Every structure is written in C-alpha cells, then in structure tokens.
C-alpha cells in the first residue's frame, strides 16, 4: 500500500515541464519511431530485392541470399548491431579516405537505421518470398503470356496479389522494428528505453518511468496492430473469405 502511495507521488515526475521528465521521454519516443520507420523502409526494400533474388535470381545470387538470411537470423540482433555499427562506420570512413575526403562521424540515427534495416531485410526477405510463392502461378503465367515486361508483372500482378498474404508477416515485422529500437540503448543511443533508464536512475522512481515507457510502447503496438488489420482487410477486399 505504501508502495502504491509512493508510486502515485512520483507521477508528477512525468510532467512535461523541466522538473518532470515528460518532454525527454517524448523526444526519445520520437527518435525511436524515426529509427523504426527508417529501418522498416530499408528492410522492406532489402526484403523485396532479396525475395525476388531468391525466387528468380541465378544460382550464385540465390546462395548468397540464403547465407544472408541464415546468418542474420541466427546471430543475436545485439551482436549484429555492434558488428555492423563498427564495421559500417569503418567501411564508410575507409571509402571516404580512399577518395581523398576526411573521415566523418556517422550519426546515431543513421547508424541505427542502417543496422536495424539490414536485420529487418533478412526477415522481410522470408516473409515476402513466402507471400510471392503463394500467388497462383497461373496469374503470373497469364501476365507473361500477355507480353508484360518483368518489372510491370511485379508492379501490376505479383505485388498486389501477394500483399494480403504478406501483410500479417509485415505487421509482425513492424512490431519487431519498434521493439528492436530498444536494443540501440545498449550502444548508448538516446531512444526511449535509454532515456527512460536515465530518468529512472536520476529520480530513483524506477517503476514509474519503466511503466510509463511500457505504456508508450504498448500504445504504439496496439495502434499499429489496428492499422495493419485494416490494411489487410482492404487488401483482401473482393477476395474469397479466408477459412481459419
């Protein structure tokens, strides 16, 4: 009971004005969301290339894609983040030095988007590949028979038809993207979880701040779940009812 009273007394620490930590928390949420959006977009792009490469590429490309998805899905994100973070900044600087420019400091946001994007790309490859394979072969054959170019087949036939199959998986991937941003806290990037830990450490109100951050993450999850459900319903319109 006294714990509950103490917790309500610390609620005012969440106010937006300076004694409260509300504003830094919201800023952390904003940078988390920015990285999640960027990483998700990059992941989708990589996933599309990967899925088409795995399905229609030559034997070498196919094997390389298999190595990419296997390695990324077998190694913890935390380790990948560290490796890609150092290797990525190193590689960019080597290239810049080689071209005769000065080395640059890569911002945390850019590095976070790049690293999480590569991780997302591996999972997106598998989701999209499965969804494309579920498209009835006759549809793509018909498009080919009509003399459509491969790019047009992808844009007009394959992608719209695979979308309903892919959306549940893509929804899960988006939720993973928002949650994986928390891992950047370990490399010291000031996203929501890291800011929360700083706030909690400074005020000793651990429960209040971690619960508040949890509510923020949960709200994002619930809203995105609702949006993805609507998108799936829209993508499925006019299709026969799915039987569970």
């Amino acid at each position: 009971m006294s714990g509950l009273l103490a917790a309500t007394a610390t609620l005012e620490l969440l106010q937006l004005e300076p004694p409260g930590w509300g504003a830094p928390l919201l800023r952390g949420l904003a940078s988390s969301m920015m990285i999640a959006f960027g990483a998700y977009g990059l992941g989708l792009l990589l996933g599309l290339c990967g899925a088409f490469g795995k399905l229609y590429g030559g034997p070498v490309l196919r094997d390389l894609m298999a190595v990419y998805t296997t390695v990324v899905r077998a190694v913890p994100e935390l380790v990948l983040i560290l490796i890609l973070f150092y290797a990525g900044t190193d590689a960019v600087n080597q290239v810049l030095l080689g071209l005769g420019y000065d080395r640059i400091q890569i911002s945390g946001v850019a590095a976070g988007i790049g690293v999480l994007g590569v991780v997302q790309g591996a999972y997106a490859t598998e989701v999209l590949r499965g969804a494309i394979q579920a498209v009835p072969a006759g549809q793509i054959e018909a498009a080919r028979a009509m003399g459509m170019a491969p790019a047009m087949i992808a844009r007009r036939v394959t992608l719209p038809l695979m979308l309903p199959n892919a959306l549940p998986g893509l929804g899960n991937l988006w939720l993973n993207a928002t949650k994986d941003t928390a891992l950047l806290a370990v490399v010291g990037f000031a996203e929501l979880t890291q800011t929360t830990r700083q706030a909690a450490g400074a005020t000793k109100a651990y429960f209040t701040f971690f619960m508040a951050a949890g509510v923020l993450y949960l709200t994002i999850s619930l809203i995105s779940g609702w949006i993805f459900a609507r998108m799936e319903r829209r993508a499925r319109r006019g299709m026969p009812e799915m039987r569970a």
Partner: protein
Amino acid sequence: MILTRAFWQPHRIVLAAIAIAIVVFCAVTLRWDWVPKYLPLAAQGLWRTIWILLTSVVLGLMLAIPLGLAQAVGPWFLAWPARAFCTVIRGTPLLLQLWLLYYGLGSLFPQIPWIRQSDLWPILRQAWPYGLLALTLSFAGYEGEVMRGAFKGVPKGQLEAAKAMGMPRFTTLRRIWLPQALHRVLPTLGGETVLQLKATPLVATITVVDIYAVASRVRQDTFLTYEPLLLLALVYMAVTAVIVVIFRWFERRVPTRVA
C-alpha cells in the same frame, strides 16, 4: 544435405573456396592470441547462456500451457487477464521488461524487511534471477499465444470422443488435448527457441556474465573491435545449428499421421 552430390554444384565449390579464403585471411591477419587466456571464462559464459536458455524455455512453456488454455476455453475472468498478459509482453521490448524487473524490483526488495531477512535474500541480491524471470515471462507470453491457437486447432471430434468414452475432464486434457496441441506446436517451437537464444545476451546488460558479456570484457581488456565479436557471432551460429538439429531429430521421432 550438405554431404550429397547434388549440393556440390560447380558454383558452390567456388563459393566455398571464397569462404575458406576469407576465414584463412581472418585467421592470419587478425589477432587471436587472447583466445587461450579467456577460454575458461568463455566456457563458463557459454554454459550460463545455455543454462538460462534451457531453464527459461522449459519454465516458459509450462507457464504457456495454462495461458493458452485460459485464452482458448477459459471463463472471462481467466481469459481476460491471460490475453492482457500476452498483449503486454508482446507489445513492449524485452529490454524494457528486463530493466523494469531488475531496477524496479531490485530497488523495491531491499526496503521490505521480511524479504531481506528471508533465506532467499542471497539469491535475490544477485542479477540472474531477474534475467531468468524476464526471459521466462517473455517466452510464456509469446508461446501462450501459440498454445491458444494449438488448443483451438485440436479437432472437436477428438474431445467429444473422449467425453463419450466417459473420460474425466482432466484425463481428457492430459491424454488427448495437451499431447495433440503440443504436437501442433512442435514445428514452431524450434524457431521460438532460436529467437529465445537471440534474446539471452540482453541479460548481460544487468551484469549477468553470459558469453556475450565475456566478449564485451575481452573487447574492453584488449581494445580489439572485431575479433571477439566475430568469434561471438560464430558461437551463436553454432548454438543455433545445434538447436535446429536437435529439434529436427525430435520432430522425426514424433510420428505424424495426416488423415
């Protein structure tokens, strides 16, 4: 598959040669002289990682069964909390849950006298119980959702037949419902275990010395950036391979009969 003739097409031989060349290049040009010194610590860390993985998977699965059952057929006052639990666990990052338990409970427990005086206090003062608790709850949350689907997926006729035979409800659960539900879960369980393995390095952030923490320590001691991380990635890949092989063996042992 890797030993068959069909696998070794010409381009694969070239790719394998390139891979071996990269490995040899890493072995020759990078520094590996620190490895023997840290080997005992690494073995300890690896053991701790595997121990936490196994314990949290087993405990989490045991928690997931009632969670799935409550969501599938339970009355509202059981189904509702179970669903809320799964939603909260799946909707927030594991790192946040871990820190909430470790810093939150860790700061709360010392203020309560009877916990401080209890025999459990020497254990609760350490970090690993909180790591184990967070990983277990997380696995239970994800797997509870899977179990819900599995319980619902068992054909009604099976349960009706059991009822017609006059089986008590608990026996039906034990002999018919649970085995069939677990059978349905088995193919996904391997993947979930790999995901859980990938979540274990988070416990290093609360000072549990697992294999990831050992690699971080090597990096701090030797100022090497890549070598410990590359070796660490290799270790995780090896553990993942072992998990995949074990589950494939397990799946082959369980007879499948598709009607």
